[in-house]
């Protein structure tokens, strides 16, 4: 690597680290919880670790621990993965444009596309390809190392960090506000909040995501004529 390339990589790493800091806090907290749980259920370290490495989706991994402890049921595993993973479809559609022309980075950007990585990378409008890749990689590293720490040293944790997991909610809210203040067309925000809240109330906390997603799609489709012009005006500028 030349000096110039090394310097620009260093800078990108610095930018990516700053962008990913809230994810570091959230993932270490949740990762430690995940590692502690896996250890307390009597799994050898290999199970939580291979799930963290190959699945890299907190919600699927927490449910996975339960599945590994129960009877073998591949169909249930598949449908559960589909239910909790469905929201990724929306992240993909939202990132189609941003992740264009990424070359060799693209498979990694896709594999590492979690809720938090999507939120950070989408909100960082000026981020370069390398910075987005590094944010994604750092998030992956935080999650795996958090799980590892929880598994190995969880029982030694003495200080009271209860409630720190709220940083994830705070991050989504702050990014929501950031987007809300940037956008001209605000109705999708109300559609997203409304559909999800109604679905959570009606269907309950286990299966509300897919109905909420369907509701959002239907509403956005129904109001397309009204909403669409504002986005294409923006594109013409």
């Amino acid at each position, binding site marked *: 690597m030349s000096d110039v390339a090394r310097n620009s990589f260093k800078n990108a790493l610095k930018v990516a680290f700053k962008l990913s800091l809230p994810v570091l806090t959230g993932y270490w907290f949740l990762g430690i919880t995940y590692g502690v749980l896996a250890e307390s259920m009597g799994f050898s370290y290999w199970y939580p670790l291979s799930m963290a490495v190959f699945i890299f989706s907190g919600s699927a991994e927490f449910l996975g621990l339960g599945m590994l402890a129960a009877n073998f049921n591949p169909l249930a595993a598949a449908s559960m993965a589909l239910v909790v993973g469905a929201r990724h479809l929306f992240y993909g559609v939202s990132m189609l444009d941003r992740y264009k022309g990424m070359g060799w980075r693209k498979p990694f950007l896709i594999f590492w596309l979690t809720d938090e990585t999507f939120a950070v990378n989408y909100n960082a409008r000026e981020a370069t390809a390398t910075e987005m890749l590094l944010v994604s990689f750092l998030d992956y590293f935080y999650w795996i190392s958090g799980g590892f720490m929880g598994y190995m040293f969880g029982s030694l944790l003495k200080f009271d960090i209860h409630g720190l997991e709220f940083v994830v909610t705070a991050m989504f809210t702050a990014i929501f*506000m950031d987007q809300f203040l940037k956008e001209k067309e605000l109705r999708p925000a*109300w559609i*997203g909040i409304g559909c999800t809240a109604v679905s959570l109330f009606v269907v309950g906390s286990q299966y509300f995501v897919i109905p909420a997603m369907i509701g959002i799609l239907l509403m956005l489709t129904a109001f397309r004529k009204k909403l669409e012009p504002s986005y294409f005006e923006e594109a013409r500028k």
Partner: protein
Amino acid sequence: MTSQQQIITIVILAVITFMTRALPFIVFPAGKPTPKYIQYLGKALPLAVFGMLVVYCLKDVQWLEGSHGIPEILGIAAVVLMHLWRRQLFLSMAVGTAVYMILIRVMV
């Protein structure tokens, strides 16, 4: 469960999770023009999705018991107000999280 069955379970979870991430990129490859409708969704969805994520974080709140979700609602309100005031991501997050952590300790 045998260890073979455990490996199969992990593989199923990994493959399907990856598919949910990859599907949009496979169906709408970068080389081909993306349909107008999908382009529109790409623009309109993010704000809806961020709204969805905020509500998603409240899924396990017990509204009728304990602290009735007051720490969560006030924590979120703190983030919103801080962001309207200073518009700095970290500051908003830190204040919101602090408000939440204090409230869950003083409200029993």
